[in-house]
Structure formats: structure tokens, C-alpha cells
């Protein structure tokens, strides 16, 4: 990956990647081109086009069941498309298999919707698994690294706990710590605030933003939560019926005449957070 310029850590959320990097132009890290996927008769992805620039956080916004998570799983190679291509730094991902795909995936971190923690392992073993498997790190060194990652998500000292002992928010934090264990270049978030109460969702949003500043990774956040999108994203892509209907900043989204955008906002997705959003005013 090309070296990224340092970010302005005082930048406000939603300020845009270009603005935060002092106007430098970043190249595309992920390019999704004309991606199609069907399950039986149901077309889930219908010609998706999306470009995510280096260091940028792209939020894919859309109602539940519109295919956002399916898109994310294609980006990390967990699903094969019917047609179309996905380029990661110019390298075609859809044709990769075996060793090449594994090497590429090691540069990704992914936070799953339900956290997907291994319930037969402790928190520490969950976070340490990629380090142990890929780097051969064990013993005290592994314990120190795991503790460091857990500290980044505010869970220092929790490595001995079982996932069943954690709250929903803590599970998401552990999933975040596991996703950044290998210091990935790209982090994917699948509905990071779903199933959490508004206060915990707010904390997770802040944590995502803080981690983006710390690890400088290119990110894709998939969510149906408008407030989460506003808080975490540099750019918003609105997905509707298997297509990307809109790409732009949050300001562009609010001022858009696109029918799908108007309907999405009007129907009040993430209405739980509307008051909080409005009370914050125009954060940017």
C-alpha cells in the first residue's frame, strides 16, 4: 500500500478525506465495478459501482435487506460474484483463491454484525488468534500485544473473560480489537451499531472514529443508521434495491434530490438517533 500522509487528528467527523489530508489527492484502494449477485431468483446486487479512496471512510447506507452485507462480503472475498470485478489497489480480487486470497485477507480487518467472537475462546484468545496463526507470536509477547489492542478499545484487563460474559457493546469492542490485531490497511464494519442502545451505539461510533485516526486505515462501514453514517463516514453511498443510488458527503446527501435518498431520509431510518443528530446541529 502507498504511504498515506498524516491526518489532521483535530478534524471533525464527516469533514471528508480530502479536507483532512490538506487537499492531497488519494488514489483508489477499493474499486467495485458492475458487481452482480443473485441467490436463486433474487437479484441482490444489480450492477454495483463504488470507489473507496486511500484513507477514506466510506459508509454504505441503506435499508435492511438491500444487500449491504453481501457487498461487504464480496469485498473481502467471502462471496464470489456472478459477474463484475473488485479491485484492491488495482489487483483483481474475484479471481483469487488459496494462498493469494489468504495473503490479501491478512491486510483486511472485519467487524461482523453479531461480533462473531469465537465462543469457545476467551476474549484474549479471540484477539490473539490472528497474531498467533499468522505471526507465530506466543506467550508473554502475545499477551502484551493482546492487552495493547484491548486497551485501544477500552477493555484492558478483560482478556480472561469469556464472550458469554460480555454485553453487546463489549462484544463489538472485542470484535474491533480483533479486527485491528494485524494492523490492517483496510477495515470493514458490518452494521457496527445494530442491536445496541443509543448510548452504547454512540460510544461505538466514537471508538470507530478514534481508531480510524489511530490506525489510518481505509474503511467501509455498512449501516442503516443515519446518525452512525454521519458520525463515522467521510463519504456516504446510498444503496437501494441492489444499486448504489448516490455517493457524496453527508451535506450532499441531505441536499440531494435523488428520490431514493429522499425516501430513505423521510422514512426516518435510525429515528432513534434523530433527536441526537438534530440536537448536535451541523457538526461540521
Amino acid at each position, binding site marked *: 500500500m502507498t504511504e498515506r500522509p498524516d491526518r489532521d487528528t483535530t478534524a471533525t467527523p464527516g469533514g471528508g478525506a480530502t479536507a483532512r489530508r490538506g487537499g492531497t489527492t488519494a488514489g483508489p484502494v477499493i474499486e467495485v465495478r458492475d458487481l452482480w449477485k443473485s441467490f436463486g431468483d433474487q437479484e441482490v446486487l444489480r450492477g454495483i459501482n463504488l470507489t473507496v479512496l486511500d484513507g477514506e471512510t466510506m459508509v454504505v447506507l441503506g435499508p435492511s435487506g438491500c444487500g449491504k452485507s453481501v457487498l461487504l*462480503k464480496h469485498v*473481502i472475498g*467471502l462471496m464470489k460474484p456472478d459477474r463484475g470485478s473488485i479491485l484492491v489497489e488495482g489487483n483483481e480480487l474475484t479471481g483469487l483463491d488459496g494462498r493469494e486470497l*489468504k*495473503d490479501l*485477507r*491478512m491486510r*483486511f480487518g*472485519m467487524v*461482523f*454484525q*453479531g461480533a*462473531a*467472537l*469465537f*465462543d*469457545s475462546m476467551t476474549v484474549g484468545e479471540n484477539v490473539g*488468534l*490472528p497474531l498467533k*496463526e*499468522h505471526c507465530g507470536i506466543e506467550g508473554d509477547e502475545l499477551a502484551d500485544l493482546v492487552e495493547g489492542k484491548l486497551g485501544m478499545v477500552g477493555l484492558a484487563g478483560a482478556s480472561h473473560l469469556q464472550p458469554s460474559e460480555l454485553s453487546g457493546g463489549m462484544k463489538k469492542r472485542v470484535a474491533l480489537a*480483533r479486527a485491528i490485531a*494485524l494492523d490492517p490497511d483496510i477495515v470493514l464494519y458490518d452494521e457496527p451499531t445494530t442491536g445496541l442502545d443509543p448510548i452504547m451505539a454512540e460510544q461505538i461510533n466514537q471508538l470507530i472514529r478514534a481508531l480510524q485516526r489511530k490506525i489510518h486505515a481505509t474503511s467501509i462501514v455498512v449501516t442503516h443508521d443515519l446518525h452512525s453514517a454521519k458520525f463515522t463516514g467521510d463519504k456516504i453511498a446510498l444503496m437501494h434495491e441492489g444499486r448504489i443510488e448516490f455517493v457524496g458527503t453527508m451535506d450532499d446527501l441531505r441536499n440531494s434530490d435523488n428520490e431514493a435518498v429522499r425516501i430513505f431520509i423521510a422514512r426516518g431510518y435510525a429515528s432513534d438517533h434523530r433527536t441526537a443528530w438534530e440536537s448536535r446541529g451541523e457538526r461540521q
Partner: protein
Amino acid sequence: MRNSSPIPGNAIADAGAGLLGTIGRVAIELVTEVGFASILLWRSTLALRKIGRSMPLVIEQARRIGVESLPLVIMTSVFTGAVTAVQAAYQLKDFVPKIYLGTAIYKSVVIELGPVLTALVVGGRVSASIAAELGTMRVTEQIDAMDAMGIDPIRYLTMPRIVAALVMLPVLTVFADILAIGGGFFVSNASLDLSPKIFIEGMKMHFVARDVLGGLTKALVFGGIISLMGCAAGLRTFGGAVGVGAAATRAVVTSCVLILVSDYVLAVLLFKIIFGE
């Protein structure tokens, strides 16, 4: 209200078609599962290259499949041996000398009852457990998470279970054989009026190593079937808790069916073709 055919003949034909449809669906499901298990076996065989790194996982699975199944195997074997002694004594009395009771118990246990009953009871426990565990991991995206980290779920989850079952089923079968013969020996002495010396003499008279070898070969194959069908059902799970339950049931049914079918195939192969007359 459900529509029923006004003509009795048609109702019977509908019922027949329904039955055939069910049999067809079960057969397709069985063939699909076995096909998927074959691919899994091939990929697990390739993953054996990294067995050194997976040894702690193999040992953990050996403990879960082998050691934790031991109480069940002990109970099943002791009573199977005891029942075999009583039944054999009843069937052989009046026309076969009592010395052959030891022979009958040893032969039936080592060749057939030991490996098959051990496989059926362990299969019920282990294949359901593997299917439920992997099925839960599948529906909660834990397997996707593993894949996303660049860790091969076949090497990490499937291969250790298959290797452990291949090792532990013959070991459990040896235990089962010894305990079943012990059960038969005890009952023969306690209630069938057969002295220990005569029982052992009967066993020694027709002892051949190929009987033991044949029984353990069966156990090895059964171990592969149990673990493979458990893994296959687990990895093909979808649809939440209901899907996990269905996967566990499917694993037990396919394991038991394949154990019985392969028992016949192995009996012909081993005792008619390979060991011959």
C-alpha cells in the same frame, strides 16, 4: 380447511406420490451430503501438510471424542457382552458344546458388535456435537470471521476432528472389545455355569489376528464417517437455531446409515475378498 381428493383411489395415489417424494428428497439430501463430505475429505487431506501446527487442536479433539465418550462406551460394551453371553448360551444349548460359548462371544464382539455398536453410540454423540458446534459457528458468522482473518476453517476446524476420530474410534473399539468380552466372561461364570478356564480355552481355540485387524479396520472407517458427516452437516448449516437442530439430526442419521451400509461393504471386502476362505 385442507382439500382432500373425493375419489379414494386418487387419495391413495397422492399419498404414494407424497411418500415417493419424501424418499426422493431424503435420497437427494443424503447424496448431496456425501458429495460435500467427499470434497471436505479431500481438502482435509491436503490440510494434513500443516498437521504439526494443528497438533494441539487434534489432541483437544481426541480428548473430546475419545476420553469423553468412554463412560458411554463402557456401559454399552459391558452390557452388550453380558447379553451376548446369555443369548448365545440360549441359542447354542443342546447342540453345541459349552466350550464354544467363549468362541462365539469373542468372534461376535471383535468382528461385529465391538466396532459397530461403538461407532453407533459414539457416532450419535460425536457427530451431533460436531454438527451443532460447527453449525452454530456457521450461523453466527464465526466461520466467516475465521475465513476473513485468513485462517483456513478446514485446517483449523475440520482436519483436527477427522484425524482425532480416525485415531480414537479404533482405541475406543479396543476398550469396547475388552469390556464386552469381560462382560460375557463375568455372566458366563456367574450365571451360565461355565468355568473361566473353559471360557478362555474356547476363545483361544479359534483366535485369529485377522479378526481383530478386520474389526479395527471397520472402526477406522467408522471414525472417518462420523467426523466427516458431522463436519459436513455443520458447515452446510443455515437458518439459525432451527438450522442447527436440523444439522445435528442430519449428521446422526447420515452417520448411522453410512456406518451400517459400510459395515456390510467392509464385511464382504475384508472377510470374503481380502482375508478370503
